[in-house]
Structure formats: C-alpha cells, structure tokens
C-alpha cells in the first residue's frame, strides 16, 4: 500500500494537443480517489500516466517514495481494471488471473492460493476453467477485478470499469467495489464520467475539465460548495439551476426581473455587478418565503415528472426553464403557478465570466 503523489503533470501529444495541463495532487495511503469529468477532460490520460501507459511530458509521479516516471508499468506495483476489461481471450479465467503473477515468477502454490482466494471473494470459482468469450458481461467484469486483486498491488487503477454494464448490474458492482475497498484498504484511483459513482465511491473527488483540476474535495464538500460553475453543473442530478443577473443593493435580480432574492449575510463579501446565481432543484421551497427560505419568484409549471417519492417540476421563470424538486406526492400539474422560495444558505453565487469562479 502506498501514497501517490503527482506534481505538475503535463501531457502533450505530438500533434500538439495538450491533454493534461499541470495537475498536482496527493493521494493518501488507502484512499479511494475518484477522477471525474466529462470525456476528453484528461482524467483517463492522467490515470494512464500513473499506470505508465502514457509517457509523462512534464512533471513527476511518485508511488510511495519512488519516482516512477521512467519505470515500466509492470514494475510500478499497480493493477489496473480497464473499461473494456481487456481479458486475454486465449487464456482461461484462471490463467487470466494468474498471468501477472507468472510474469513475476511467483511460486506456483502462491499463485494457486491467491487465485482461489480472489475467485472466492468475487464468487467466480465456477468460472475458472472458462474462456472469456463464454462469460457474461458481469462475469467478465469480475474476472477483470480478480485479475487486479490477485496481484495485491500498492495501488489499484480503475478506468471507467462499470460503464459497459447495464444499469442494474452497475449499481450492484458499485456496492461490491466499495465493499472490496473497505476490506482490502488499498489505495485506489478511479476514473469515471459518472458523477453518481464519484459521489458514492470516493473518499475524495478530483473534478477535471480541459486538462485542469477544477476542485479536489470530499464528495459532500464538493456538492455543497462547488468551486465554480462547471463543478456546480457537473455534480448533482438533476443539475443545478442557473440564473444570470446582477447583484444590486444587497440582493440578486435575475435578468429581466423575473426573480429577485435578498442576499442576507453574503452581500457584504460580494461586490455589486453581474453574477450567476445557482440553486439546486431540491433547495427550492414551494410556497414562497418563510423563516428558512427567502421568496424568490413565481413560476409556471410546464412539465411535471412524477417519480413517486417526489415530483420533478420543470418550471418557467422569466422564459428560462428550471427544475424544482417537490418532495412527496404533492399534486403538481402543468399550468400550475408555484410561488418559489430558496432555502437559506443554499444559494451559490458565481462570477458571470467564462471561468465562473465561486463568489459565495
């Protein structure tokens, strides 16, 4: 087990594409770190540099105390699970799992022991003699996991391991992965584009975009205090509602004047001028203002999605659509006009420029 430390990491491709632009982060021993971001954000490239599959253009990667920039992937004491599993099709499940150990000249008995243990842990003992093509998708996923586990590496690297599974299986495997990590306690770097996986699995989340780290923090911290508009939009489902407007006289006025809200407490720290107000769907309070919530606007429902335990109301505020989460099965129908308030302390203010830095 080991820490991983990344300093000033860059990746430039020969064609000129600058995929990773100077990321630095420290991963604690035993931590489950999730790299998340939209496709092309550089998360996979970063992971592959840690794995040694991509050459580092600039910067340092340390696993434990060891600088691994020029160390072959096989000697970095890591194991990796690929998005497409990458099982060796010409080898049986047993041989797939044993392959890495054989390459390291592990004694035969030891190989046998570890493979059996991993197979038991993943309940795939009955599949050991089969070839990958005779397995279902979920089984292949387990074998890929098993292949990583038997190596007992210092760091596990996961590259979108669940994205090829169907929804039900994905939920199940997600829970198993969490359990596995708790049991093994190995450091994990996990790449995904799915914010649910990021939120549920990670001790910390690293959110990346355009090759740059946007925010590093614990899942809830990121959810509660997104560092910029991009992070705010990426984390959370349904996504956060944004209102363009101006801060004036200690309050926020949406463009066109369809909504306005006082900014008690934060007004002092935020300069007047253009800004973007972000409100999560669940932070709206239907019924207007009370002691916990400030009155915001009156909105007309255009679509009502009944989920059973809640209703997602698509509402129009000054011509722009927002989503409001209405708890319980309170009847909301298209055409209804809802008075909306905002829960106190649930307002996110971002700069109106492209960067969209958090103001408060």
């Amino acid at each position, binding site marked *: 087990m080991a820490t991983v430390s990344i300093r000033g990491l860059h990746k430039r491709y*020969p064609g000129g594409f600058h995929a990773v632009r100077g990321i630095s982060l420290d991963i604690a021993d035993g931590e489950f770190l999730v790299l998340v971001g939209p496709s092309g954000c550089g998360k996979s490239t970063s992971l*592959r540099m840690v*794995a*040694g*599959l991509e050459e580092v253009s600039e910067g340092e990667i340390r696993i434990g105390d060891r600088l691994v920039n020029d160390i*072959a*992937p*096989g*000697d970095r004491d*890591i*194991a*990796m699970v*690929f*998005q*497409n*599993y*990458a*099982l*060796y*099709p*010409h080898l049986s499940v047993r041989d797939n799992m044993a*392959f*890495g150990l054989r*390459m*390291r000249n592990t004694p035969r008995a030891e190989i046998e022991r570890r493979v059996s243990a991993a197979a038991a842990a993943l309940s795939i003992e009955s599949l050991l003699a089969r*070839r*990958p*093509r*005779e*397995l279902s*998708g979920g089984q*292949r996923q387990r074998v890929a996991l098993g*292949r990583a586990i038997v*190596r007992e590496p210092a760091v596990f*690297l996961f590259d979108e391991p669940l994205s*090829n599974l169907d929804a039900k299986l994905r939920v199940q495997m997600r829970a198993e992965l969490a359990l596995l990590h708790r049991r093994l306690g190995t450091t994990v770097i996990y790449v995904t584009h799915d914010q649910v996986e990021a939120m549920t699995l990670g001790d910390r989340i690293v959110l990346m975009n355009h090759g740059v780290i946007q925010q590093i923090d614990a899942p809830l911290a990121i959810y509660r205090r997104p560092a910029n508009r991009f992070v705010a939009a990426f984390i959370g489902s349904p996504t956060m509602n944004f209102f363009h407007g101006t801060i004036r006289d200690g309050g926020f006025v949406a463009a066109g004047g369809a909504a306005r809200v006082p900014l008690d407490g934060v007004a002092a720290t935020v300069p007047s001028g253009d800004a973007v107000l972000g409100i999560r769907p669940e932070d709206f309070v239907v019924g207007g203002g009370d002691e916990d919530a400030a009155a915001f606007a009156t909105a007309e429902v255009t679509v009502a999605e009944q989920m059973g335990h809640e209703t997602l109301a698509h509402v129009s505020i000054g011509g722009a659509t927002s989503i409001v989460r209405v708890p319980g099965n309170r009847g909301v129908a298209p055409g209804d006009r809802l008075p909306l308030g905002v829960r106190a302390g649930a307002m996110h203010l971002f700069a109106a420029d492209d960067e969209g830095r958090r103001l408060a």
Partner: protein
Amino acid sequence: MREPLRITILRHAVLLAFVAISIYPVLNVVSISLRPGDRLRSTDLAIIPADWTLASYAALFTEQPFLRWLGNSLAVSAAVTVTGVALASTAGYAFSRFRFIGRRATMLAILTTQMFPATMLLLPLYVLIARLGLVDTWLGLMIFYTATALPFCVWQMKGFYDTIPASLEEAARIDGCTRGQAFWYVVLPLATPGLVITALFSFMTAWSEYIVAAQVMQREEMFTLPLGIKGFQASLSSQWGLYAAASILVSLPVVAVFLSLSRFLVNGLTVGSVKE
C-alpha cells in the same frame, strides 16, 4: 441460434456451385494426367479417359528426380515460411502499434516494390545474383522469395494487429510484461489467423515460383518442383502427361498445409476479450 432453412439452403447452393466451378478445371488436369500419349486436349467432357493409365505418375517417381525436387521445394518453402512469418509479424506490429518517423512512407515504399513489372526486373536481378555469387545457392532463392512475400505479409499482419484492442497489451504491460513479452504472450496468439494467412502466402510464394528459380538454379539437382515441372514443357512437344501428373502432385502439399493450418483460421479468438 438455428438459422432459417432458406438461409441454409442458400449457403449450400452458393457453396456447391462454386465448388463445382473450382474443381472442374482441376479435374481436367487430372484427366490430362491419366491420358496416354501426351494429349493436352480432349474432344469430350469425360474426366476419366477411356484409355486411362497411371503411367505418368509412375514415370515421375521412377524416371524423373521428382522426389529430389520435392525435397528441395519443401526445404525452400519451409525456410521462406518461417522467415516470412517471423519478419512480417514483427514489422507488421511496428507499423500497427507504434507511431514513428517514416512509418507511412516506409509502408508505402514496401508496397511500391510490388509495382514494377517483375518480368522487367529479371535481367538486372540475374546480374545481381550472378555478381553476388548466389547462382545455384539456396540462400539466393530464399532471400528473393522472402522479399517477394514480405510486402503482402507485413501489410496483412498490420491489418490483423489493428483489429486487436490495444488495451490487451496495456493490461499485459501492467501485469508485468515488457513490450516484447506482451507481444509474444498476448498479441501473437491473438493474431493467429493473420499468421496463418501469412504462412500460407509465404509458402505458396516459394512453392509455385519458377521464373526466378530458373535464373538462380542452373543445376538440375538443385531444381525446385515448379522448375522441374516446367522442364516437361517444351515448345510444341511437351510431355503433358508428366506435366499434369506433377502439377496434381505438387498441389497435394499445399492442400495438406492448408488443412493443417485452417483450423487456426476458423477459431475466433478475440471474440469476448473486450467490449467496445
């Protein structure tokens, strides 16, 4: 899943029709080999002539150094197959997996070697062979055949490697393989159909060539089979019986090689390895 009957019928209809087309001309060759008196043509459709005889086959083994030629040909073809497969599998890998300077130019240049009409190259080739002292040597023949077979083999192997997902090698490298080991333990076994085609092609190149062989081999005891067989052909007085019988016998090793290799051609290996 079982197929609809009409598809099965269609398959067999197509296959049977082409099998008939494939073998009829060859049956004609068989027919020539059974005719006495060196008659190339017949005036009817009968495959087994009324006056059939196996004399031509007997004569091949008793009066002609057929076995000697067969041995020569087998040796040359085997050597060419081994070197061809070895060189093509490595070069094809480089062209498929690495991006290096001159890659595209070299691939194209390899193709260009096939573009010059071979007949025009014969004269300078002979000059080259003679100057290097390669007349009457196996080495000269082998180098030439390997060079002839390689462009196709390299491209073919590259095409096959292209269909093998890169993540398999990456997995292998993380599992502790060097690039070389990943190539040997993971990529090569998966490229088996490509290797088989490469092997078959290399073998055939060496097995059926006679124009260059006629330039290199000037002693009858060094002849390869096709060269020996061509000797049965003389302008206007060919020994068609021997010629046809030998041609049939020459095909048998090819059929045997194909038989032994074809099971590798039909076992899909990459299936199920990755999910794209």
